[in-house]
Every structure is written in C-alpha cells, then in structure tokens.
C-alpha cells in the first residue's frame, strides 16, 4: 500500500471543459437538438398498416426480381441476346459516355472558377463571385437541373450532360479552391524570390503542388458523375435510368433487377478505378 499523502486541501470535483460557451449552453443545445429530432420523428410517423402492407408488396417485388433477366440466353445457335440485353447495353454505354464528357467539360470549366474562388489568389470581389457560383451550383441537385434542362433541350443525354457540367464546379471548384488556398506559400515565395515571372511561379511553384490532386479530383468527380448518370434517366435526361423506371412501371421486375445489378457493377468498377488512380497519383 502506498503511504498516505495529505490530499486534504485539494479539490474533490472536476468537470470536463466544454466547447460550448458554458455548460448551460451545452445542455440547452443538446436539449434543443433532441427536441428537434423528436419532432421530426413524430411529424413523419407511419401507421402500422403501412408496414404490413409493405411486407406483402415486398415479397411480390423480390419474388419477381429473381432470377434477374439480362436478356441473354443460351439458345440453339450459342449465346442469344434479345431486346432487353441491347437496352441495357445502349443505356450503359450512354451513361458511361455522359459521365466522361460531362467530367471533361465540367473540370475545364471548374478550373478558372476554382482560381476565382481561392482566397489567396483572387481579389476580394472576384473571390465572392467565385464562392457564390460554387455554392449555387452545389445547392441544386443534378436531377432538378436535369428536369429543367429537359424542357429546354428535350429528352436525352444532352440535358443530362449539361446538368452534370453545371453540378461539377460545386464539388470540383470547391475542393480545388481549398487546395489552392492550402498550398505552401513559402515554397511559392521561394520561387518568386529567384526572380521568376508570374507564369513561371505558377508552373514551378503552384502547379506541382496541385497537379496530382487535380488528377485525383478529376477521377473522383468522374466516379460521382457516373453514379449520377445512372439515374438522370429517371427524369428523362439520358442514360440507363429511363429503362429502369420503365421496367418498374411495367412490372418487369426481373429486368429491373438485371439493370440494377449492372448499375451496381459499373458503380463499383468506377469506384475501384477512382480509388486506384488516386492512390497511384498521390
């Protein structure tokens, strides 16, 4: 046992300091948060009948989904493909093409916007405009933009591509601007101190720090655009989405399942490519 030391004069209570202004504020905030959440849950309450109804529907749905029908079968003359297969094929091809074109154009547009939105590079008023563009394009979901553009450009991939191009700066320019703001000012200053021209400073000082990230971000955005392209068709803006909704509407659940599996496969592939490239580049 340890020899007893006189602790008498020391405090007996201790409270963990809080990030909030004080403990009362903390309690109020937590209480408010919980009240807010409870209100939301109450507001969205669901009747038990709904749930029961749902289970019946679910079994019908999942029963119809298996086995999935890709439109491929082994026939007399080898592998035969029917209409369904080609619908998937065309749809995914269009989806893929949309994602690539949208990313290319979107990234090119985002770069100047990113420069505008970088606090350390752009002058104040330009900075605010840049940030406003980023916020605005980020706030509107691609589907909404897609719907509006379908009215202007008609059904089809064009509306979808433009919708994605519109949405890209909100993500790409935002992250790129943050990277530009984070660049090591000292190494840039060092380059500048050697008497380099602004362009040389850009190429030797800024670019090397930003380039790998640029490539990584592009692939990352492509992955996101690929996912978005798969569902733009739901509002008629091109891609496999249209085939998906149609199949649901016509109760062709086995076809729906095939489309779903294809979409998932492509999304996973895109993710793998994105992760691999980003690892290699950075």
């Amino acid at each position, binding site marked *: 046992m340890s020899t007893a030391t006189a602790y008498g004069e020391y405090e007996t209570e201790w409270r963990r300091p809080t*990030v909030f202004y004080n403990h009362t504020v903390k309690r109020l905030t937590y209480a408010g948060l919980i009240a807010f*959440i409870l209100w939301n849950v109450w507001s969205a309450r669901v009747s038990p009948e709904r749930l029961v109804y749902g289970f019946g529907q679910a079994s019908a749905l999942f029963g119809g989904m298996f086995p999935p029908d890709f439109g491929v079968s082994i026939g007399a003359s080898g592998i035969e493909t029917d209409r369904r297969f080609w619908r998937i094929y065309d749809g995914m091809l269009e989806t893929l*093409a949309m994602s*690539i074109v949208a990313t290319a154009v979107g990234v090119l547009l985002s770069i100047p916007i990113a420069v505008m939105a970088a606090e350390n590079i752009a002058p104040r008023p330009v900075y605010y405009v840049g940030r406003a563009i980023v916020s605005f394009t980020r*706030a509107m979901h691609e589907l909404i933009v897609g719907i509006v553009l379908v009215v202007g450009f008609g059904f089809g991939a064009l509306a979808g591509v433009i919708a994605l191009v519109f949405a890209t700066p909100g993500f790409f320019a935002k992250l790129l601007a943050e990277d530009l703001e984070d660049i090591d000012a000292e190494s840039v200053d060092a380059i500048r101190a050697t008497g380099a021209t602004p362009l040389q400073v850009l190429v030797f000082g800024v670019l090397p720090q930003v380039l790998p990230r640029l490539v990584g971000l592009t692939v990352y955005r492509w992955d996101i655009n690929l996912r978005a392209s798969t569902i733009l068709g739901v509002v008629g803006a091109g891609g496999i989405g249209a085939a998906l909704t149609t199949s649901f509407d016509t109760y062709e659940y086995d076809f729906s399942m095939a489309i779903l599996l294809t979409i*998932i496969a492509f999304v996973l592939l895109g993710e793998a490519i994105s992760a691999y490239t980003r690892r290699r580049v950075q």
Partner: protein
Amino acid sequence: MGTVDADQSTSEATDRPGSATTERPKTWERYDGRTRLLRFLGLLGALVLVALSYQALNVRYDYVATAPENIRNLLGRMYPPDIAYSGAIVEPMIHTVNIAVVGTIFAILLALPVAYMGAENVTPNRGTYALGKFLIVATRSVHSIIYALIFVIIFGAGVLAGILAITFRSIGFIAKLLSEEIEEIDETAIEAVSATGANRLDVVIYGVVPQVKAAFVGISVYRWDINVREATVIGLVGAGGIGVELNNRISAFDWQAVLTILLAILVVVLVSEGLSAYARRKIR
C-alpha cells in the same frame, strides 16, 4: 595545384573501399523517358476517350440550336415567381426536412455497428469484418433515388419510402468513413488504457471514442447536409417531400410555381449547408 576537378576526385575515390565511381549526369529531367511516355499516352488516351464518348452521345445539333431560345423562353415563363403559391410549399418542405433528419438519424444508429464490424482493428473476427465491409459496399453503391423507387413500390408513395431510401443510402456512406477513422486511431493510447486494468468497454469509451468522436460528428453532419439535397429530389419518384410538388407543378406547366419551389429549395439547402459548415468548424 589550386583547382580541383571532377576527374581528380574520382581517381582518389577508387582508393577508398566501398565507394562507387560514377560520373555526374550532365542534365536533369523531372521524369525519365519511360515515365514521360506513359504520361503522354495517358493524356492521349483520356482525350481519345472523351472524343469517343462525345461521338457515342449522338448529340442532336438541331436541339442544341434551339436550346438557348427554349431556355430563354422557359426562364421568361418562370419569372416572376408565384409568391401567393409559397404558402402551399411549407408543408412539403417540412416533410423534406423530416425525411432528411429522420433518415440521417436512423442511418447513424445503424451505421455504428456496421462501422465497428468493418474496422479491421476492432472487429471481433474475420466473419464480422467481411459482413461489415459487404454491408458498407452494398448500401453505398445504390443511389437514393433507386432506393426510393424500390421503397415506393413496397410501401407506396409517401414519406416512409423517402425516409428508408435516405437511411439505406446513408448507412454505407457513414459506416465507410467511420470505419476508416476507427482504423486510424492511435493504438498506443489503447495499449495504455488496457494496461491500467480497464475492461473492454472502458477501453472503447476512453480510448476509441475520444479519438473518433470529432470525426464522427463531422461525418454525420456532412451526410445530413447531403441528405437535405437528396430529400428534395426523391419526391420526384413519389417518395415524399417537396419533390412531389415539384413534379406536379412541372407536369402542369405551372412555371412560376416551379420557380418558387426552386428558390425555396435553394434557401433550405443553403441554410443546411451553413449549419453543417458551422458545426463542423466548431468540432475541430
């Protein structure tokens, strides 16, 4: 006598054991020949890909020609927004926020065990690890809209389908980021807390939670922010919220009402983004 040149130093170097005699290269290039070729091919390949894709899209140029006029037309019909209509938006908007909040909460609760299972350093065994990873990948790969389509078929149109769609999609997102955070914790702290004789749960509370708490809150708030945006559109396929109203107004060609809705969405999303950014800043 006075000058030392490269040849002299290399000849002296041969006397010392173990040192190589190399000539200094005359030029410096950032990448060697092979890497440069690869980079060039990579860039070329990307350009070809883009060109081919553009081809594949079969862009209808007549549409492109009429588009600016159509857009101008549309914008003209949208403006000014229908103020009187804004009263009708309130309830669907509240539903939208409900969907986002409840969906995120459910997702957080369900994501905790999934993240725990999917984190290599805390998962109980290989089986749970595989299960965790599978759940993460499976739920992440499906867009909320697709979940919404499915749940509308199952539970009928309405808010329930929307909540479930948001929940399922978010589980994978949150669990993935959270499990990555857990995998990166400082093991030495865990070691020390174990060495005091604390039990497993204490080690988690004192060792793991403090290290991931900040990131966890950040991830959850981030996902809530994204979910607000997603909740605005799942109504387009019937899963409740403002999207339903939007769909109706568009079908009715009521463009001024549409603009009102779009503006309302913009405001709500910006507010949630502001709250989210604020909260994430405070949490450090």
